[in-house]
Every structure is written in C-alpha cells, then in structure tokens.
C-alpha cells in the first residue's frame, strides 16, 4: 500500500503506474482514430462517395462509432475511470444511458417536424425533394 493515501475514505490505494507506456499507447490510438475520421470526412469533402446517400450515411455512421471508441479511451484511461471500483463506474455510466433515449427520441422528433412542414401536416404530397432555390419566387419581375 502506498504511503501517501489521501484520506481514510480510500480502502485500496491504486498503485501508481510504473511508467508512461500505457499513456503513449492510448495517445497513438487516439491519433490513429482521429486520422481515420479525418480521412473519411475528407473523402466526403472531396466527393469520393459520389452522390450515394446510403454510402455517405454509412461513412458518417463509421465516424460516429470511431468517436465512441475515442470517448471510451479518454474516459477509461486518461480519466482513470477504468481503474476505479465497479460501484463508482456504474454510478457514472448508468445515468448516461439516458442519452440513448434522448438521441433517438429527439432526432426522430426533428425528422417528424420536417415531414409535417413538407406535407403541410400530411395534407399534400411531400415537397422535400423539389429543388428549392429560395430567391426564385422573390426575384423582381418573376411570378411566385
């Protein structure tokens, strides 16, 4: 047991890591994941995926998953949450599961608003894919 225990609240002192190899390993991992995200994002910027909506959505999904891995490594290793006892980990992680519901529910809601607007609350065909160049109707001398 270490001789600089902070308080009596600590039952088991975590022995400090001998060297910094784990930190650098995670640094390279985070750099690699970020580089992969940037490469996929750069592909989108340079239109490598053409107009393939499904492929673009898939690439964006992959980027989101890579981000989740980055978040896991930052929290687990850099913030040392992975070294804490299970009780503490659970009290932090369990409430955050609410985000699963939040994200699904709110994005669904946003999409629903879009449909309601585009169909005037389901009273006409969806106008989403009609090319809308906003100024067309507001141009002087043009019919709306």
């Amino acid at each position: 047991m270490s001789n600089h225990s902070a308080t009596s609240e600590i039952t088991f002192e975590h022995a400090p890591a001998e060297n910094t190899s784990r930190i650098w390993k995670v640094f390279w991992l985070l750099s690699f994941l970020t580089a992969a995200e940037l490469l996929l994002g750069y592909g989108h910027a340079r239109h490598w995926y053409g107009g393939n909506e499904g492929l673009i959505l898939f690439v964006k999904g992959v980027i989101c998953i890579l981000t989740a891995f980055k978040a896991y490594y930052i929290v687990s290793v850099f913030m040392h949450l992975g070294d804490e006892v299970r009780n503490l980990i659970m009290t932090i992680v369990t409430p955050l599961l609410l985000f699963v519901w939040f994200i699904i529910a709110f994005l669904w809601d946003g999409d629903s608003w879009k449909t309601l607007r585009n169909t005037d609350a389901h009273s006409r065909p969806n106008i989403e894919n009609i090319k809308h160049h906003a100024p067309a109707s507001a141009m002087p001398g043009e019919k709306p």
Partner: protein
Amino acid sequence: MSTTTVQGTKWWAGGKSPFNATYGKVMMWYFLMSDAFTFGAFLISYGTIRFSVNFWPDPNQVFNAFPGFGHQDLPLSFVSLMTFILIFSSVTMVLAVHQGRHMNRKGVEKYMILTILGGIAFLSCQAWEWTHLITGEHKVLVNGALETWGTTVSKNPWGPAVPHEQLSALGLAASEHVTTPGPVAFGGYFFGITGFHGFHVFTGVLVNTIMLIKTRLGHFDQRGHYEMIEKAGLYWHFVDLVWVFVFLCFYLI
C-alpha cells in the same frame, strides 16, 4: 493490491467510501456527469433542428480556411490542428497526474506548463476561427438584392447556391459564387456550443494555472499527495472529451 481483495470487500457495510474514492473526486465526477448532460442537451437540440430542415450548410464549405493560406479550399485542416492540440494537451495532463502519483514536483510543473500552453494555443485557434467566420464576406441574394454577409448568430450566408441562369439575370458573371440565406439556427448553435466549450477550456486553463502555482509553492508536497492535480486533470480531460463530440457534430458529419 490485488483484484481479489477488492472483490471480497463489503463496500456497503459502512465505515468506508463504497466508491473507494475521496469525496472531492466523487463530486468532481458527478459535476462532470451533469456537465455532460448540459453539453448533450445542446448537441441533441442542434441535431433536432438540423434534422427538421431540408437544407443544412455543408461544414466542408464553411470551415475550409487555414491561417496564411488565403482563400484556398482546405476542408478539415484547421480543425484537425485544433483537435490534435487538445489531444496532446490531454496527454501532457495525464503525464502531470502520473508525475504527481510519483510525488515528483518538477515533473508535475513541467507537464502542467505544457498543458496550459496547449489550452492557450487551442483558445487562440478558436479566436482566429470565430474572427474568420464573423468577418468573412459572402455575397448573398436576399429578396432579389445582393448583400454581403458574415456568419453570425442572426445571419447565415451558407444557403443553397444561386443557379447560373439567375446570376446572369442579375447581371453577374456565371463564375460568381452567390448563395441564398441558410437556416438562421446555424450560427447560433455553432457559436453557442463552441463558445460554451471554449469557456470550459478557458476555465480549465485558469484551474490549471492555479494548480501550477500551488505546485510551485509546494502545497501538495506539504499535503503529502497530488490529488488536486488529478481532479483538475479530470476536468481537463472532460473538456477534451466534449471537443471530440463537438468536432464530430459540427465538422465531420
């Protein structure tokens, strides 16, 4: 310490922290969890609005500048620099915590200075990017008249481009890039969320500076432990963690 002794412990029997952590550290974790909900609410609200409109500006068009490269189209370049600055300052922070665990005051000082410099570098980048967006001039067709707009919380010049036929009708060259107003929420969300994150970075730099001063004064050596560095480190890593998501939501997808 072995894993088996930890597992055999009756954590809830009383007389000790069931979390095997000090009060201060547990409360720092709960603060960060609540802050995660704040940022999460902001980002989800942004996502909801983005899902609710037919057109949203392409981040690769909006964020394509790099200081010193004029009008060259360099998507993702400057934000990559910002991201790597923050990742690297996260590494120097965890190295400071590591030195603190080994009661090495000189090492803590060195890595805290590097972390603070990383934070200042990030804030400087953000200041440049905001200035570039706000003062950048873009031709926008508003109700049939041309206006010059920057990106602000009330003006978004990143709407759909005006087609060439309409440009000639307006007496403009076909090569001219003129847009129509984009969804007004764009600037508010971008400046609001990156501003709130930048404010966290600024606070983190302040906290880290105080910790550096306390380290130099030998307060933690007198106390016999460097736990304050660990708690400041938790906050700093959280700031990096939030940036990972801001980077994802505003620049990548």
